[in-house]
């Protein structure tokens, strides 16, 4: 809209607002209706046993604050949590995250494991009532995700530099094939929403701009339990039930149970808590410091659920093995030093003070839960033990020869006699990270190592870690967050990985340790390993090797917390990353 025209119209509106309101109808506000379901021929039945509170009842509205405005309704290009919270509720893929079928009714893996044939659910429709066909699946993959013009995460789909071939067999059958087995295919499909070709085929050339926040909801359709009903920028998104959703409960009631989900935009953490305590929202992912105030109101139906700790994130101290200081470079490349640094990390204190005790210590790389072996008894662990840390430092030859309480480098180092000291960078907005850095600095000081903890802006930290192949840092406390198929591990642990920020010189083949080559080999093998048990073994070995040689000092994973109104809603089992409802289809309003 032309700005001057807009301003003129708004000034007029401003002037007559009260008068207009006086004439306004005193009609009731929005009425919440229930969609008329159109059953799928072969719906996916959710058993009562898989629902925490058993079968629910249809109707009602759930309100959950969204942490920001959505930036787009395009599920392929969305990157922000504000969009994710909505898009996860309105889209679905061929497969579910747990490896079971979703939009696909069945799938068949060829004997040579180089192709998988999927059969779509019979009678399945998009939320606008248009039947879903195999051509929609082909369109989503070939025309959109694999397209060079589209800002999609297409890297996960590349196998030996090539995208898989997608072939439509008939309206309800599609075959995806590749030259070698593609073990990550099913998990990739779980994260890939099927797009309606009839609504998007005209936007392929400008797909990055398709389904923006100003696209009318009627032009957006998906296969998730809800559809967008309205979006008022800065205020809220309203989702209504998808009348064509393809799941029912075991008594034949079409899911989702809820008529509506309302997501008001509330960006401030404290305000989200106050709104939950005020009864305005039904669900709230609390911070550790919020727990007591919520538990104080348990008699009113306020309930806290603590989820198991995740396994995918890596909370680490990274020691830059390419540090400009020659002493530190040599020291950080010494495996015994990194092991000593792991021994010096008081994970229990970090968890108890920073996370209110809600976390689990970790000693190896983050990986999705189905491959996680960090709890195994024989998993290499350099758990908190100051005497072992001290022994290792002595072994290296770092001793306090002048009695000032700080160890000095021995004669075998480029600058002997210099004090062992370094700067520890962390993120200034994160009290948790700063807490970890403080505890660690104190522990290292008692070991005779001087540490200056420096909180910097997140962008500064990332720039110093990543924007130069000779990273401008010595030690950093950071969190690496990835999820999905373990293929992404190559970005971090392969010698040429873009996030290999603790030793980029591995890419040039400089002083590459044997274990790094072994890691590289394991990661390459697992990407093409078709046998799931062999792939598991390779990833198990990968975790053990990394944990043994400590390229990063791993700390812990936090337990997610959820709070809900037990008196109002049932079957709530948490959220994903405190952003998206985990089981939106069978949450119900009591």
């Amino acid at each position, binding site marked *: 809209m032309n*700005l001057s025209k*807009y301003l003129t119209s*708004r*000034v007029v*509106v*401003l002037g007559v*607002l009260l008068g207009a309101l006086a004439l*306004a109808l*005193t*009609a*009731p*506000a*929005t009425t919440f209706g229930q969609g008329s379901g159109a059953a799928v021929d072969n719906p996916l039945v959710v058993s009562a046993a898989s629902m925490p509170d058993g079968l629910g009842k249809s109707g009602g509205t759930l*309100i959950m604050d969204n942490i*920001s405005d959505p*930036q*787009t309704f395009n599920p392929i290009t969305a*990157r922000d949590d504000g969009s994710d919270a909505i898009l996860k509720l309105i889209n679905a893929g061929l497969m579910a995250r747990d490896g079971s079928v979703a939009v696909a009714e069945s799938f068949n893996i060829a004997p040579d494991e180089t192709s998988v044939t999927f059969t779509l659910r019979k009678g399945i429709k998009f939320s606008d009532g248009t039947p879903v066909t195999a051509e929609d699946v082909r369109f989503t993959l070939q025309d959109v995700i694999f397209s060079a013009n589209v*800002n999609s*995460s*297409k*890297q996960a789909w590349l196998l030996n530099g090539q995208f898989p071939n997608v072939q439509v067999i008939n309206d309800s059958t599609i075959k995806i094939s590749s030259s070698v087995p593609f073990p990550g295919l099913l998990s990739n499909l779980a994260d890939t929403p099927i797009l309606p070709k009839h609504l998007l085929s005209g936007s392929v050339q400008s797909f*990055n*701009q398709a389904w*923006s*926040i*100003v696209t009318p909801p009627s032009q957006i359709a998906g296969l998730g339990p809800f559809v967008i009903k309205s979006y*008022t*920028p*800065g*205020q*809220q998104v*309203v989702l209504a039930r998808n009348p064509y959703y393809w799941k029912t409960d075991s008594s034949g009631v079409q899911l989702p149970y809820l008529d509506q989900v*309302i997501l*008001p*935009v*509330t*960006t*401030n953490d*404290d*305000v989200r808590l*106050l*709104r939950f*305590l*005020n*009864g*305005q929202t039904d669900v709230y992912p609390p911070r550790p410091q919020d727990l007591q105030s919520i538990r104080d109101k348990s008699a009113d139906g306020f309930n806290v659920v603590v989820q198991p700790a995740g396994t995918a994130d890596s909370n680490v101290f990274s020691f830059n093995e390419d540090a400009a200081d020659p002493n530190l470079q040599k020291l950080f490349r010494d495996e015994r030093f990194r092991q000593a640094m792991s021994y010096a990390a008081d994970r229990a204190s970090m968890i108890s003070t920073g996370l209110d005790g809600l976390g689990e210590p970790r000693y190896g790389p983050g990986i999705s839960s189905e491959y996680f072996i960090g709890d195994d008894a024989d998993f290499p662990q350099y758990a908190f033990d100051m005497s072992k840390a001290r022994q290792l430092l002595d072994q290296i030859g770092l001793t306090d020869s002048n009695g000032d309480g700080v160890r000095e480098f021995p004669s075998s180092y480029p600058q002997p006699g210099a004090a062992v000291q370094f700067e520890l960078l962390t993120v200034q907005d994160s009290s948790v990270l700063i807490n970890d850095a403080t505890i660690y600095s104190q522990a290292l000081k008692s070991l005779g190592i001087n540490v200056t903890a420096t909180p910097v*802006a*997140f*962008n*500064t930290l*990332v*720039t110093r870690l*990543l*924007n130069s192949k000779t990273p401008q840092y010595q030690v950093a406390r950071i*969190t*690496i*967050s990835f999820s999905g198929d373990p293929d992404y591990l190559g*970005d971090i642990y392969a010698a040429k990985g873009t*996030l290999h920020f603790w030793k980029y010189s591995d890419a040039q083949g400089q002083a590459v340790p044997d274990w790094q080559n072994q890691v590289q080999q394991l990661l390459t093998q697992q990407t093409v390993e078709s046998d799931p048990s062999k792939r598991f073994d390779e990833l198990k070995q990968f975790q053990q090797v990394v944990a043994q040689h400590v390229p990063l000092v791993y700390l812990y994973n936090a337990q997610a917390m959820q709070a809900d109104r037990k008196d109002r809603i049932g079957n709530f089992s948490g959220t994903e990353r405190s952003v998206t409802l985990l089981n939106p289809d069978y949450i119900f309003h009591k």
Partner: protein
Amino acid sequence: MLGYLLRRAGVTLALLALVSVIAFAVIKLMPGDYLTQYQMSLPAELLDSLREQYGLDQPPLIQYGRWVSGIVTALDFGYSFENQRPVLEVLFTSGDRLFWSLILLLAATITSFCVALPLAIYSATHPKGIGSMLTNGFSLLGISIPNFLTALLLLYVLVSVLQVGQLGLGVAGLFDPQYVDAPWSWEKLLNLLWHLWPAVLVISFANIAVLARYLRAQLLEVLSQPYIQVARSKGISERVVLWRHALRNALNPVLSLMGFWLPSMFESTLVAAVILQLPIVEGAFWQALGRGDQYVVLAGLIFFSVVLFVGNFISDILLAWSDPKIRYE
């Protein structure tokens, strides 16, 4: 006068150009760019293609040049990386942000004057009473307490002390969810007013304090002038002395304060927007600032500079209007 206006417009344009250069330089001097926040979670290939698409791979001078040429040739203030929408739409028209900003500005201005004026008059005319002490104390509080703390304390009192939730009353935002998309009705208007008053109070609080203290000082000075003594000695009633003679003269300097009022109010509104979740221009600006959405930030800074210039211009005009000794040529 026309010559003055033209000169003034020319200087304003030159200053805006300078502001844009400084703002752009400051943004570029900060480490990283809009895509830095995604560097730990998006594949490098995607980041490279996004950087190319957004023009962030170009030297800063070319980025700035393209942005300025867009403004000059097509009044195009750029594109929001975050929303994939034109900047002006993101800042002003999306969600009627400018409309709600103006509503709040108007409501807070009226409230500020309606509260500050009686407070100032009372404390100036009763300088030694307990009421005056309370008024001064209130003014001091208003100036001392940061706006964000006022907003959070207010929400805390509403939720935890008064427990307004038990009456079905919500806090933050402009409406409760069921009214956002509903057609206008008395219920919706009442709901808006319920949500609006904390915002108006937060925005007005510090401004009331500043205004009341300034006006009180002016009134005290005028009330001590000889012509007021003369008026009193003539037997003119205290009411007439105050309203006709003292207040009119004390208000003249206050009018010049009006010029700074506009930018000051926009500044207070920024805090209210963030804490009270108001869908206004300042909220969109704040969000863009946090995300490094550079063209939205730049357009926002230009907008606030324009507001400052307009405020100063109004101030100068009001001064000339109220004081015959001042003329612009």
